[in-house]
């Protein structure tokens, strides 16, 4: 038999820090940790600003001013928040089913292309209100189909939805670029650009911002009710938890996956429609512009609760607009402003770890009740 390995040096090698899971945490403590995270984020951001040679108080104040200071910038902030909110709702539906839809970007573009077709080529054939409805339906169908494709393959052959939805983003982008360079190119322009929509294809405004904001809030309320009180929402949650349980309960898992992803894609499609018809008034390769990815952050920060998403998307919009502002007023480079945003998001997401876990330092006896 093998001799024993050399005796280890068992000299007090208690680890310096250990991580233990918390017992449930009170609401107050959770709020405390979150506020601490905000303070720490602002503090770390301040260090960054100081190294750039600015006064952090002025910079933060200017960020707020740039996002909320005047009516005009406030409207711009809302305009930024709207697509974030509706795209977050879209991905949250899929995430509730543990279907990792990171293809909202492509689904937004698909919806935008669907809407743009009618805006560009059919605007003469119907009245204003009907055109908008038709554009919206086209966006729903196009976005829905873009969401349905990976769901179908997942349901039939258990393909990996993360890769699949991601790849479909590039395909959607490729199609858009083809349209922009070829069949939909504005013949009077030297650049490969699609012409601007006519007034008939533009969303009306309410309180100075395109009506999409009302639509997004309605969507949030509807999604909340759908997820918590509808039979379909229940099925989505059960499938997300365990497909075995779903089968045991007599649910048609494939049907539920396909249906939920159609809805998810459709809502992303509506986002695309709102962008082209309410904000950009044309279709470009930047129509989605990363919204589909930022929406994932919004969805998780809100713990997939559509009502909380209203506030979180607005907060992220403030951050984005504020970061834009300080680029011009303080000549802070765009990349540094992005780092600042990243720092704040990092702390917000990172604090969830401290809500679930606790660090125990070497030598400290644990309290009997965590």
């Amino acid at each position, binding site marked *: *038999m*093998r*001799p*024993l*390995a*050399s*005796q*280890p040096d*068992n*000299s*007090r*090698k*208690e*680890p310096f820090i*250990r991580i*233990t*899971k*918390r*017992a*449930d945490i009170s609401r107050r403590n959770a709020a405390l940790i979150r506020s601490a995270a905000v303070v720490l984020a602002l503090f770390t951001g301040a260090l960054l600003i100081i190294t750039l040679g600015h006064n952090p108080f002025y910079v933060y104040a200017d960020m707020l001013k740039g996002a909320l200071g005047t009516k005009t910038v406030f409207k711009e902030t809302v305009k930024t928040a709207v697509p974030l909110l509706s795209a977050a709702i879209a991905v949250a539906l899929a995430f509730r089913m543990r279907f990792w839809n990171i293809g909202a970007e492509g689904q937004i573009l698909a919806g935008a292309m669907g809407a743009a077709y009618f805006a560009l080529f059919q605007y003469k054939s119907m009245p204003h209100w009907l055109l908008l409805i038709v554009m919206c339906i086209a966006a729903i169908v196009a976005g829905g189909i873009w969401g349905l494709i990976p769901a179908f393959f997942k349901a039939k052959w258990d393909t990996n939805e993360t890769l699949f939805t991601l790849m479909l983003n590039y395909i959607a982008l490729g199609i858009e670029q083809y349209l922009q360079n070829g069949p939909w190119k504005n013949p009077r322009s030297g650049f490969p650009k699609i012409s601007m929509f006519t007034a008939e294809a533009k969303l009306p405004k309410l309180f100075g911002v395109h009506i999409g904001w009302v639509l997004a809030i309605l969507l949030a309320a509807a999604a909340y009710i759908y997820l918590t*009180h*509808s*039979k*379909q929402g*229940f099925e989505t*949650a*059960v499938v997300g*938890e*365990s497909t*075995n*349980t779903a*089968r*045991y*309960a*007599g649910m*048609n898992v494939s049907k539920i996956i396909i249906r939920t992803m159609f809805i998810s894609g459709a809502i992303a499609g509506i986002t695309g429609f709102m962008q082209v018809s309410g904000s950009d008034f044309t279709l470009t390769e930047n129509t989605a512009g990363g919204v589909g990815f930022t929406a994932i952050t919004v969805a998780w920060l809100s713990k997939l609760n559509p009502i909380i998403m209203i506030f979180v998307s607005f907060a992220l919009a403030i951050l984005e607009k504020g970061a834009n502002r300080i680029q011009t007023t303080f000549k802070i480079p765009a990349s540094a402003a992005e780092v600042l945003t990243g720092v704040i998001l990092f702390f917000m997401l990172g604090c969830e770890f401290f809500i679930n876990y606790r660090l*125990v330092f070497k030598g400290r*006896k*644990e309290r009997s*009740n*965590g």
Partner: protein
Amino acid sequence: MVKQTETAVLLSNVVKRFGRVVANDKVSLEVRRGEILALLGENGSGKTTLMNMLSGIYYPDEGQIFVNGQEVRIGSPKDAFSLGIGMIHQHFKLVDVLTAAENIILGLPGKAKINRAALAGEIREISQKYGFRVDPNKKIYNMSVSEKQTVEIIKVLYRGADILILDEPTAVLTPQETDRLFDVLRKMKADNKAIIIITHKMHEVLSVSDRVAILRKGQVVGTVETKDANRQNLTEMMVGHAVSLKINRPQPAENGQEALKIEGLTCLNSDGIKALDNVSFTLRSGEIMGVAGIAGSGQKELCEAITGLCPVQQGAICLSRPEGENLNIVGLTPTEIIRSGISMAFVPEDRLGMGLVASMDIVDNTMLKSYKIGKGPFLDRKTPRALAKDIVGSLEIVTPGLNAPVRLLSGGNVQKVLLGREIASKPMVLIAAYPVRGLDINSSYRIYDLLNEQKKKGVAVLYIGEDLDVLLELCDWIIVLCGGRVSGILDASQATKEEIGLKMTHIDALKEADL
């Protein structure tokens, strides 16, 4: 025996917490060389946690561990091995595509080239010394559960362990295999090794151990010499109060009607291998039929075929309906089976992964199978809430509230929620797969009572079990599965454990023809 009283391991006031749960509360324990110590306790009493601290998987929050009289810090399984401590886990940690010998040396330092002949020789030497039967060149995936366990034990011995911990080693073995394992353990004991065996089976404790340490709720409530112990007093120490260990078996209904008739049922499992092969039996109303067999002998597929979850290759599954003729449900989906008017309840083996939704509350879990009832796209939570309240009340479920996620409940309470819901559907046929697995004694007896109540009401109960003693006491009939085939259908009041154990591993070809 030499050095009988030499202390191998001493635990002193060891504490381990997980969040608010105190898994081990100031546990002190002595393990001696040349003895077999049984660690007895109900599920959740902290046996495995305690041993995981010895084997380096967990690190204690407080307290000291002494090995061979020296205080040690065991920070990793590697540390444990170098102290001569080896643990054989309940779930084997072997690489399926490698041979026994390869698994045994896996992770050990050595040259790039393996001297297979020498290795095989060493393994044979260990095997002969303790009476193992193992082929060093056999691949793990070709092995039976008991062979795999043997490999795990040799793996630990090969690394020079002289303090062995076995976590519920008999849970997956037949009575015959258990006896063989115990012979090996006795030989290792004679070789002056310290052996700790974790179990909750009383008769094993009594037959193999020298001393018994009893854990309850994370604390050692006592250590007794096995020769002074008996079933009753051990149980009382384990549970904390007097319990009756007799399972009541009411008379089965006379001339119960055929509720479930299975003929020539053949199914493939998910790997395309025959999991059920020409299975036939009849289950009548008002009786409990037990299904015995080694784990993975087709029990899961049998349950799932009857409930429409596992596709059927061949054969018929006929269920009686309150109205209308018997119906062969082969080829129907679970939804279609429900729509056809058959009332069947199924308590699956995987409670939180199949029977219930772990993150949902009791109300939502109560409506898991009935949420579609009622018109419109919205859920009606009123009726399920009332039903959930009923179930919680009548089965005395301990829960922080109806809105607490079921994953927060203890195993026994989780099972009560599941069984409560299934019984509430007033089934004709009730299928319960391992309904007491992981439950404490009190909860287990409550579950037996509930099944007996159903039997008295005229429900046909199919009980998939693993504890042969329970099967013999509770059931009217026992059907033994061996490799997906029926190796015998026995009258439970006449059959013996040995008889069932034998049928679990052997099929008598002549007898089979008669079935």
